Each structure stands twice: as structure tokens, then as C-alpha cells.
């Protein structure tokens, strides 16, 4: 089962990417090529190959529970498109639904 244009439209909506119908049609076969490639790789890796999540097989990389300096409020808000009372100001949250 490959990816259809409808799947692309749905993924686009979930990822908040506006796609035209034409783009959905064009992207579906492209994504299928990628999925096929992944499938080919999966066939090579047999059950004797352990799952890897990272190029270097590290586990338990932890930091100590120590407080380090935070940004100041001004620094934290310096990149905010809008702000009010020391807080990030964002558009109404449910307006789009």
C-alpha cells in the first residue's frame, strides 16, 4: 500500500503545511520512492541486527541535577513576535477550529 494524494493532504494538514491539490498529487509518488527505499534497507537488516537509534550506540547519557543560569526575561522574550507583561503573546488558540 503506497501513499495516496489524500494521505499527503492529511499529513499536510497535521503538519500545518498548506498544499494545493496538484502538490498532493505530485508529492505522493515522491514519498513512495522514499518509503520503498526504506523498505529495501529493512529487508537487508535481519533479526540479528539490533535496532539502532543513533550512529553511536550510547545509552544513559545523563546530566547531574544541577541548576544552571537561565536567560533573563528580556533575553527570553527578545525573539518573541509579540509580548505582554513578561509573557509571550500569541493569537487566540482555538480560533482556527
Amino acid at each position, binding site marked *: 500500500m503506497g501513499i495516496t494524494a489524500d494521505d499527503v493532504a492529511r499529513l499536510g494538514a497535521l503538519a500545518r503545511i498548506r498544499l494545493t491539490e496538484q502538490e498532493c498529487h505530485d508529492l505522493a509518488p515522491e514519498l513512495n520512492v522514499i518509503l520503498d527505499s526504506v523498505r529495501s534497507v529493512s529487508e537487508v537488516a535481519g533479526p540479528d541486527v539490533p535496532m539502532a537509534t543513533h550512529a553511536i550506540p550510547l545509552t544513559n547519557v545523563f546530566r547531574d541535577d544541577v541548576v544552571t543560569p537561565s536567560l533573563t*526575561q528580556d533575553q527570553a522574550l527578545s525573539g518573541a513576535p509579540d509580548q505582554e507583561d*513578561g509573557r509571550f503573546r500569541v493569537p487566540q488558540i482555538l480560533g482556527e477550529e
Partner: protein
Amino acid sequence: MTETIPYDDLLTRYEPVLGLEVHVELNTNSKMFCGCPTTFGGDPNTQVCPVCLGLPGSLPVINGKAVESAIRIGLALNCRIAQWCRMARKNYFYPDMTKNFQTSQYDEPIAFDGWVDVEVDGETYRVEIERAHMEEDAGKALHMGGATGRIHGADYSLIDYNRAGVPLIEIVTRPVRGAGAKAPEVARAYVAHLRDLLRALGVSDVRMEQGSLRCDANVSLMPIGSDVLGTRTETKNVNSLRSVERAIRYEMTRQAAILDGGARVKQETRHFHESDGTTSPGRSKEEAEDYRYFAEPDLMPIAPSREWVEELRATLPEPPAEHRRRLQTDWGFSDIDFGSIVSSGALGLVEATVAAGATPAAARKWWVTELARRANEAGVELDELPITPAQVAAVQGLVDAGKVNDKLARQVIEGVLAGEGEPAAVVAARGLAVVSDEGALTVAVDEVIAANPDVAAKIRDGKVAAAGALIGQVMKAMKGQADAGKVREMILAKLT
């Protein structure tokens, strides 16, 4: 007005099935993936850094202490601990997270397959734990404009990210069945049990009113005799033990009315309202929830060695049931006296008060009578009263030292609850200390004896019990600020 069915009535036709999701904020010093402090109540956006603000190029690193706490919680819930697990990205668009995802765990929770036993009215109910996983808390949104300050109708929102990234453990039960009419109480007992357990583990402040322990309650009804689970609702914003019980009870009566009318319960998120004990529909779920979870590529897997897990197991406090038995023996209380402590939710508080130096009897007396009454009047849980076990022990210390009597001690407690400071400061500010000045007492005693020659004569004749009447009058003359034992001594010394 939402239609509901009387509670007893619905139980003849439906069986409630519950699912509880409890979020616990860990009390680590720093956040889950960065070194920002986790302290509650700081100025907005002063406990944030590039990592918890999700700025490009920043990289998270797991707080080892949070993993340790997660494992200890898992063990205390009789869970199995994963030998290898990963964090995962839960993708969603909501500005309480800057990253557009929450770092959580998905199909590989750190702890799973556990259980706890809780007691309601002397009966034991087993609550099975499906999983306990690690994640991070989200920021706090203030919804501005609109009529109600609620999310619906708001014009815009203001976000404080101080809480974003604070380590959270989410504990999820399997469906809880078979509790029948007791279902709301079992749920409450379960959350209370978790709270006590987590407090004993020392991994969280477990303050429901501050949000460090939060409960979402899934409720559905199953027609009796059926084996098909009904459609569930998830009630959020349930922020006290009392609310857990009320919210579930309300949902049961609401859903029963819908089912009785031949309609279907809508699967949705609902919000609980403390003010009238009802629930209302919340955010309608994004059509078929799809968080597109995937393993977090920026974090390494967690693989706790068996040695580490066993080391942590050795640090667990004794299981609650054994702990209670031992305390009862140590304190020498009857089943009734001890039961009154447990049922008023005061066990942890009494224990801490004893640890702070009070006798078990004194600690029990204050929490189960005076303070329970005040909590009840204020409509809050005992541990939400603004007085600490150490302060209660200090009040008792003042009584033991003869500085105040019981009656004055109650006023000291009133002062502490009113925010007037430590017990000693309340005594000073309110002028509550008993008068130990013998001169003033002697004058009062002499006057009362002179004014009551017949009572005095009785005492001289050996009727010591009559002294009570004189003690009362002396206490009244001293406006209650005298040690009754001392007054009694002085009267008897003068008349016998």
C-alpha cells in the same frame, strides 16, 4: 441544564469503568532536559533557556535524577522496569510548547505492568497500573479578553514557559472495574494513595492545588450484564481529592441520562468546575488524534542496569500497608483512634508532626479534631491548610512548656492559619502567653476565694473536687491566659 440521573438509580442499570491518568511533577532541582530551576511561582519567563524555549540548535540532555525518580516510582507501583527505552516526540501544535512537540515516551515506557491496593471502607480494591512514563510539563497559558477568561472566546493568550520542561511522570491505570457504587471513592482513594506514596518516596511536592499532582479521569458506563466497554469521556482540571470523587460521580449521572434517553455518549474531553461540581465539554479533539510519535533523535536511549534498579529498590520506603501497621504499633493507638487519623487523611501529617517532636497523642489531637474541623469549614483538604507539621509541633511545644494552655493554643493555630507567622510570633503579637507572673495570679486567686467563702469552706473540709468552680472563676478573671493546672495547685495550697 444538563440532565442527570439519580446516582442510586443508575447503579441498578450500569457499571462504571474508570481510567485514571495522574501527572506528577518531580521535585528535581532542575528541569528534565536543561539546567533551568523548577521552583514554583517565579516571575514569568525567568526560568527558561534555549533548550526549554526550543530555540534552534539547542540540544536536550536527560536529568539523571529524574530517571532515578521515575524508576523508584515504578518500583513502588509494583511495575516492571524497562531494560531499554527511548523518549519520543509527541507532535502537536499548541503554544504551551515552543517546539511543536512534547518530549514524552510512547510505546517504550520506563515502567509498566504494576498494581496498587487501595482501601475504601475496610475493603481492598486492586488498581492495575498499565504504565508510568517520563515526559516534560508544558508552559502555562493565560487566556485574555473575552468574557470569562476561559479559552473559548478569548482574544489572545499570554504564555509563561517557566513550567515548560519540568520533569513529569504520567501514571496510567488499566480500566478499573467492579467498584460499583464505590467507584468515585475508589478513584479518590487511589489518588490519595499515590499522593502518600509519592510523598514517602520524596520525589514530588504532590501539591494538588499547585498542580504538582494532577488527575484526568476517564469515565464510561457499561450496561450491567454487558461486556462491551461504553464510550468514555476524559475529565480534566480535577485538582483536589474531593474533586476526583465529585467529577466522576457527576459524569456517571450525566452519561446515564444520555444512555437512558437512547443516545450515545460523545467521546470528548470535559472540564470539571469546582464551583458547582459539573463538567462541560472542552476542546473537541483534533479529528482522530494523530500525534505522529517518533523516537527522539536528540536523546540517547535509557537502559537502566539491573544493579541500578536493585540499588534503587533498596531505597524504597516500606509499603503503605506495612507502614501503617508499624506506625499504629509504635504510637500505641487503638484501631478506632488510628482509623480516625487515616480516614481524615492525616496520617502523613501526624507522622511529620511526631517527627518534629510532638507526642503521637498530641499530634493526632490537633490534626484530627481542631485542624480537621477548620479544613472542613474552609472546604479544603487537611494538607492544604497553611500550617506545617513543624508548626503544629511547635504549638504543642508551647503547651508542654506551660507558655499557653489548650484554649490559647487554638488561638495560636488560628493566627498561624491567618498568616501571622510562626507560633511564637503569634503568641507575642496577640499577647497570648499565659500569665506566669505569680503576683497577678495570687491576687486573682485570693479575690476568688474571698468572694466564695462557702466553696472555700467545702475545699477546706476535703471536698477537693469543688476547686473546679474556683479555677473557672480565676481563669475567667485572667481572661483565659493562665495555666489551669497551676491555678488548681495554688488554690489547693491555700485551702488545704
